[in-house]
């Protein structure tokens, strides 16, 4: 800080570009409303007036091309798993996936005799945050989103990463 001190007015901030990008990205995670089953109702409740999702900067988008985060809410079946993969591929980088509920994490209550149920959405797309519960309370989903925000803040975009 030596030779920069007291040279400029007090409205100049110095920092890393990575941290600036991380701060900007984590405070506007536009989510792709991919509600499949019961967890979708809790996602809608989280977006409604009492547990406000909008104060985190998260807006619902219906098209994958405009979204950053895909919240997989509900049971993924074999028939739907192929489409989940297609939609994930249509999202632009950087993209993240939150797996909401126990059905998307590991098959949920249908794990034992469900011949058509995919045991976990991480068999088709890579997942960043798992939110357990059946269904998880809206506050649990908000905590999942906050953990994702921490993960986004720590991501390095410009610094060279050793392979």
């Amino acid at each position: 800080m030596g030779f920069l001190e007291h040279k400029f007015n007090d409205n100049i901030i110095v920092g890393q570009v990575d941290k600036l990008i991380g701060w900007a990205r984590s405070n506007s995670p536009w989510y792709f409303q991919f509600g499949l089953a019961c967890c979708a109702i809790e996602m809608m409740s989280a977006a409604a007036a009492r547990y406000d999702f909008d104060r985190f900067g998260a807006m619902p988008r219906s098209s994958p091309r405009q979204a950053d985060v895909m919240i997989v809410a509900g049971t993924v079946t074999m028939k739907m798993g192929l489409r989940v993969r297609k939609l994930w591929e249509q999202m632009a980088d950087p993209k993240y996936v939150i797996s909401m509920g126990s059905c998307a994490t590991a098959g949920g209550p249908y794990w034992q005799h469900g011949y058509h149920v995919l045991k976990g959405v991480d068999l088709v797309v890579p997942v960043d945050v798992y939110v357990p519960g059946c269904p998880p309370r809206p506050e649990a989903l908000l905590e999942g989103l906050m953990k994702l925000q921490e993960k986004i803040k720590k991501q390095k975009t410009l610094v060279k990463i050793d392979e």
Partner: protein
Amino acid sequence: MPDIRTEEMVINMGPQHPSTHGVLRLKLRTDGEIVTHIDPVLGYLHRCFEKHAENLEYPQVVPFVDRCDYLASMNNDHGYAMAVEKFLGIELPERVEYIRVIFAELQRIASHLVALGTFGLDVGAFTPFLYCFREREMILDLFEMTCGARLLYNYIWVGGLSHDIPEGFVEKAYEFLDHFEPKIKEYNDLLSYNKIFIERTADVGTLPADVAISYGATGPVLRASGVDWDLRRDEPYSIYDRFDWDVVVGNDDVGSVGDCWNRYYVRVAEMEESAKIVRQALDQLPVDGDVKEAIPRKIRPDKGDLYFRSENPRGELGFYLVSDGSPKPMRVKMRSPALANLGVIDEIGSGWLIADVVAILGSLDIVLGEIDR
């Protein structure tokens, strides 16, 4: 003008769509903007409920029944529990019956609030969605006070209930009813008599009464087409014959009988009637009685089969049970009202614009968890 060769286009209103209320795929064959044929493709949420039910004992099936129609879990539990109780021939204490009716009707109000909110969202109005969910949160507070869960309760067991209602429940329920009844007027001002909403939904997608009966459509869809039929009054189960309320049928004040506006309006009026039933049940609630005394130790019905039906917010929910004398059912078939209601979409959706198909689908109020089971 020279002869232009035109062709029909096939548009996919795919499984992921903001207006299809779940994972439903509609293959639309359109001639320009007008839809000529609709072909629904189902099964994107087929979770093998009937296979699970054959491998579990009778009381263990209740959480799975919950998750089929996740917007009306109490009514699903109620229907299944009553079907098995009829099979076994159990008598229930009065307090259990009254509490069940209170919760079933509160759940009916909550389910209709979601239906109205999302229908407004489909047609383009965002504010009613937030208002409806505000009232719904108050109902979910009442449920959470009693059984701990907000959406999927596992509360109404075969032969009784899982928890008794806590202290302070009755006062809070009266507070909610006093707050809720003036709100119906607010919804009517916001949406029902709004000129844009009327132009969007009146005279759109008219369903004649005989077509509705042939397709098996029940519930508000059937009542909006002018048929005066409600299972709670015409084939009374539980203690519904002790309450005084009206059955709402479609009218032609705004639009015609059987159109989208009537299907929407029947739901708004039904919420008012359900609030009346809850108030009467709270007034008549007996103060003592054990909610768990009639729960049987081991459920092992005799050989035979039974079909029992009850009134869900979406229509007639039926359970067909076949027993072979063992503690696990041999067959549980859930006759889902939304599957029969969705069958009419080709009849009433053809010939309208694509935007009208969205309004018609929203007015049928389907839940995919119940259709695909």
